[in-house]
């Protein structure tokens, strides 16, 4: 029982990171219809930035905040490249963000080298209902809960959130009422960047990060987000948690070598099931 609880909590912690990355994908997709392949890179850049800042004496808290802000700025740059040129289709923009992700490799290796990096999080362990877990997992869960609450408030309660939704739902009408659709798109990239950065900052103390670790992160985030059709943050949160817990259980009870396949197989199953519900244009000639 205590073993189960331990897997559950670590799974929820890692799942929160997937959900944060996934919700970054969702925010960007909702507003711009672009699937941002560079979403994992935000996490890597923020995590590496924290390790450098801590190394040069910046205290915890400030280092993390600065790194998340930097990730938001990187998000803006990716957004400017992906949707800054008028007439770029979402399909082209996907390939541009793929290019941005590869470019991040060059920058990351230049600054931080190609070795894995980590930094300490909350040091202690706590006992929850008889299960000993690193208290950092609880920090991840609490911080993610706060962020998801803030996001929900942004979209449900503020005019800015409504304008973001409006720009996505009906760009023509948005322009008529004076909403700058491109600026909303860029703002969504900033939010997406910050969410990705937060995921990286939170998860790195329990999972070290390498420059090319972004692929697994973006795939996991996509797997979480696809449950909500890339548009529903609540479903993305659920998807991320489910994925994290499933991975922790597989790793705990079966084998760690099947851990990464959980997200991949789940994602494929969901994608194929969703496609099966949509009508195929035409399978055979009449």
């Amino acid at each position, binding site marked *: 029982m205590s073993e189960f609880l331990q897997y559950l909590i670590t799974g929820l912690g890692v799942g929160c990171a997937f959900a944060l990355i996934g919700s970054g994908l969702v925010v960007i997709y909702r507003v711009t219809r672009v699937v941002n392949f560079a979403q994992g890179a935000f996490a890597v850049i923020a995590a590496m930035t924290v390790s450098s800042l801590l190394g040069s004496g910046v205290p915890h808290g400030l280092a993390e905040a600065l790194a998340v802000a930097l990730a938001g700025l990187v998000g803006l740059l990716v957004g400017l490249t992906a949707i800054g040129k008028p007439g770029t289709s979402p399909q082209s923009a*996907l390939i541009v963000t793929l290019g941005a992700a590869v470019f991040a490799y060059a920058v990351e290796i230049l600054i931080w080298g190609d070795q894995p990096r980590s930094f300490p999080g909350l040091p202690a362990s706590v006992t929850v209902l008889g299960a000993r877990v690193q208290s950092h997992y609880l920090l991840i869960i609490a911080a993610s809960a706060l962020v998801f609450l803030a996001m929900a408030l942004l979209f449900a309660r503020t005019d800015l959130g409504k304008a973001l939704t409006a720009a996505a739902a009906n760009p023509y009408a948005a322009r008529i009422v004076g909403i700058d659709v491109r600026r909303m798109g860029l703002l969504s990239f900033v939010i997406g960047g910050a969410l990705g950065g937060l995921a990286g900052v939170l998860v790195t103390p329990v999972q070290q990060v390498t420059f090319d670790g972004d692929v697994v992160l973006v795939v996991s985030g996509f797997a979480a987000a696809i449950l909500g059709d890339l548009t529903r943050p609540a479903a993305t949160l659920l998807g991320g948690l489910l994925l994290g817990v499933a991975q922790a259980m597989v790793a705990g009870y079966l084998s760690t070598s099947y851990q990464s396949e959980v997200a991949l197989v789940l994602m494929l199953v969901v994608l194929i099931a969703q496609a099966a519900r949509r009508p195929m244009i035409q399978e055979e000639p009449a």
Partner: protein
Amino acid sequence: MTRPRPGTLLTAAATLALPLLLRDDHLTLYVLLGLSAMVTIGLSMLMGYAGQVSLGQASFYALGGYAAGLIGVHGGPTLLGLLAAPAVAAAVALVVGVPILRLRGHQLAFATLALQLILLSLLSDATWAGGAIGLQGIPHLSIAGVELDRDIDYAYLTWAGVAVTMVVAHNLMSSRTGRGLRALATSETAAAAGGVPVGRYRLLVFAVSAAFAGLAGGVYAYFVGYLAPGSFPVLLSVQFVVMAVVGGLGTIWGGLFGAAAVTLLVQFLTDFGTRPGMPSYAPGVLSYAVYAVLLVLVVLFLPQGLVPAVRKRWPWPRLVPTRR
């Protein structure tokens, strides 16, 4: 079949003569460039005609390589291995293609990426395929008792592979199927309404592009003699996408020139980056930066790719007047 254009004959002759003049390390580059071209020509068809982004094309390269490598390691006839490489890749494409080709755009991109990650993970766990350490001691290719053990042999084998790829791709594109595919590229709905069996054609292109990649993987296995999951990273798939996009999607020559341009540019930068005094990370940083910058610039400012853009400005002379 139409008669080849003078440019085609000239390119063929020049590339046939080239290996005789090359040093050994340049022969290796020649082979790798040709293998990339084979994969890229298939991917370019897939992306250009069937409108599908595949981020997992290196999977088929890996499948072909392992098929050929395993047959070779177990003492099977290597020629059979070379033939098995495209067959295995195409067969796998047919099986996975049925469910995943219903996906579109970003969904397919992520699905193909996921399939490659799963394949790499399975290969790492498969002790019968050498696991994470890889498959070692793959023999050279022997055809009718003649062992191909010099680099120049593989240069000519690769040349033949590229030629076969281009001819197959050309014939596929100028066939009835090809016309249907062109209609598909313009408008899926219109193509479907016009009686084009959209799903079947898309699957066909997927399988053919996988076969090209598989064949390239087979040659690679016998050329290098060693395979590991790490030889086929996700970045290799991205590299093929870069080559296809740079050359021009949906064009056969675009696949060839895209592969050539990117390979040579990266090689040039690697040479530059490994000069004395350069930091150890320089080659990696430079090649990542080049892939990224090329991809972004071409998608944004030359969306048709290099070859169509050049052809528009300087049309190729043709021996046979074209019917338009």
